[in-house]
């Protein structure tokens, strides 16, 4: 680190696309955090955001001259650029909050984990759902053993994707690292690891024909013996909930529905995590508050030099699952597509069972 940690950390933003413009910067404004540095190849965008959010310096590329200007950085560049940027920042003692996924390959994640462990800098991964009160509560329920031994889970999250995008990087595999699995799915893979531990075997299929998948289905057997499915979509509205069946009971929570829904037995619903039961939580979906909690949690970690809520090892665990999915990939043959050409576009990956 280049500055005294007792003073307010100076935060830079590397990558200034739609998520930064519409979520992170408005959140920072609410929290009274002004960006000290905005970096993006799109100069007009950084200037616009610097003017709108009273930011400091702008640059089109992160370089050594910037390391003295910031103590911490939010990395929101395209996924495949996360690794070089994070390594650069960590090696220069700058704390990092990196948007999910931490990197697009296990090998890159391992390099980041090694860099974190060799450095005094902190790295947190932007799994925003972990900062949702209902997710924190569910984690508490599972850790308290209120459902008993988990036997199965079924998680489904999908919507016809129509989010405002400033570029097509999300749709280019060489930049995004994948489709719905690494976009929506990385959140769910993180939760699967957090809630149910390590996976033992994976079956995976998707509808990719040489681009990035829009729909996918994961079937898992966990090291604990629990079995689960995860279905993700960018083309259709799914059930949008997580169902967890345990030896002692069943819990269902909605995932990103406009109105939060929780279904469980009364004694489970009465459980309070950090003083909160589902009945005490806001009924309406409020993602802005999750971004605020995430940023506050990261800045607290930076100030107090504490382990962040979502660590680099958590980031690695999620990417290990997504990478394994791609390794064992089978085509998802939807009956109405009916390709006539003997195309190599949807060849299955050689099957591999993960240990």
């Amino acid at each position, binding site marked *: 680190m280049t500055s005294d940690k007792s003073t307010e950390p100076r935060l830079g933003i590397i990558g200034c696309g739609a998520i930064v413009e519409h979520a992170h910067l408005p959140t920072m404004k609410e929290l009274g955090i002004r960006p000290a540095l905005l970096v993006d190849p799109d100069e007009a965008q950084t200037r616009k955001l610097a003017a709108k959010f009273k930011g400091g310096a702008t640059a089109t590329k992160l370089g050594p001259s910037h390391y003295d200007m910031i103590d911490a950085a939010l990395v929101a560049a395209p996924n495949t650029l996360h690794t070089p940027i994070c390594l650069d920042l960590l090696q220069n003692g700058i704390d990092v909050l990196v948007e999910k996924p931490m990197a697009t390959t296990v090998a890159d994640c391992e390099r980041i984990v090694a860099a974190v462990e060799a450095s005094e800098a902190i790295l947190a991964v932007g799994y925003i759902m972990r900062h949702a009160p209902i997710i924190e509560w569910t984690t508490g329920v599972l850790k308290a053993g209120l459902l008993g031994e988990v036997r199965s889970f079924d998680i489904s999250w999908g919507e016809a994707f129509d989010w*405002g995008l400033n570029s097509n990087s999300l749709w280019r595999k060489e930049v995004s690292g994948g489709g*719905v699995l690494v976009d929506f799915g990385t959140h769910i893979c993180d939760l699967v690891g957090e809630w149910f531990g390590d996976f033992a075997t994976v079956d995976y299929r998707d509808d990719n024909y040489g*681009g*990035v998948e*829009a729909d996918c289905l994961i079937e898992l057997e966990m090291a604990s013996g629990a079995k689960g499915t995860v279905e993700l979509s960018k083309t259709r509205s799914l059930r949008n909930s997580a169902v967890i069946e345990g030896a002692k009971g069943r819990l269902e929570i909605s995932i990103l529905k406009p109105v939060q829904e929780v279904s469980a037995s009364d004694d489970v619903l009465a459980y309070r995590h950090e003083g909160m039961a589902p009945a005490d939580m806001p009924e309406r979906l409020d993602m802005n508050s999750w971004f605020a909690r995430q940023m506050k949690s990261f800045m607290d970690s930076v100030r107090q030099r504490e382990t962040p809520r979502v660590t680099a090892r958590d980031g690695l665990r999620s990417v290990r699952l997504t990478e394994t999915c791609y390794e064992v990939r089978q085509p998802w043959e*939807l009956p*109405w597509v009916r*390709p006539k050409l003997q195309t190599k576009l949807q060849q299955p990956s050689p099957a591999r069972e993960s240990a």
Partner: protein
Amino acid sequence: MLKDKTVLVTGATGAIGCRLVEKLVLEQGAKVRCLVRNYNRCARIARFPVETVLAQLDDKEGLDAAIAGCDVVFHCAYEWVAQKANITAAGLIADACQRHGARLVHVSTMAVYFPLPDGPVDEGARSEPNGKLYTDTKIAIEALVLDRVKNHRLEAAIVQPAIVYGPFGAIWTDVPVKNLLAGEVVLPEDAVGLCNAVYIDDVADAMILAAERKEAVGERFLVSGPRPVTWHAFYAAFEEAIGAKSVTLLPVAEIRRQNKNLVANLKLILNEPKRLAQWPPLRKLLLFVYGKLGSGIRQKALKLYHFRRKGAPREVFLPDEEQLALFSSRAEIRIDKARRLLGYEPAFDFDEGMRLTRAYVQWAYPQAAGE
């Protein structure tokens, strides 16, 4: 075959455009460029190794660059917010096709013959502006394209799909399914019209034939299925797909009476503000205002549009006058010309098309119980 040909699809994220892209890649082996007006809805086309080009429909240079090097341009895009802009866009696209020697396949609609006469309807039927913006705009575009063919040697063909249904079929698949799931769909009891349903793959195949056949140039082709079904049968098939009985039959006079019931309509509007936007004069104004909004405010406007009061009674979808005319029409779309000049033959009768559509509905709508 369009194998290794470079083709541009405008409106590639729409229902027909997207299925066309799938077929061009998976069946034709074409090199596909997709013209999009924003990147938001690219999830389906991004599954394929296609080139995505960002350009607005009034961007002359952008359209020219997108069309340069193309053998064929499939023009499926349609701007719903500012409909008259589609005429200018068609002119720019036609000009660029002519400059670059690309064949243009323009996607029009059976609606250019509205109001449909009863009995057989072919390309010689009366096609005149009727005061409806969509019909009038499509007629103007057809005239523009045919003029460029006649006077400027543009190589172009026009396809006029009938009632297009099938997976991701938007207006005649997703909308009926959503309506049937959300409430009660009212059809006229005493005016059983014919639905000229055509499975989406047949439309895409007809477009590909229009791109290949030299006989297609300068011609308009109605594209429909092998034979019409009744509108009641059309909706019954969707009811079967979702496993619910949600169609109510009412006499036309009763539908008209309910449409005019001010108190009932006010109640419905309070439960669901979007009903206000269905009133044609206001819809035009709201669409105009919506077109001027920034993306953030658009999202908020959409939230308000989709608001539905908790505990509100199930929705009732009453056909308006335009829909009543369509649901009552006994027109039978003839596809003889497409058969003769394009070699078009629908591969899907209604049963087979609905079999695949039912599979899609049950996949896309987990709340649909199925048969």
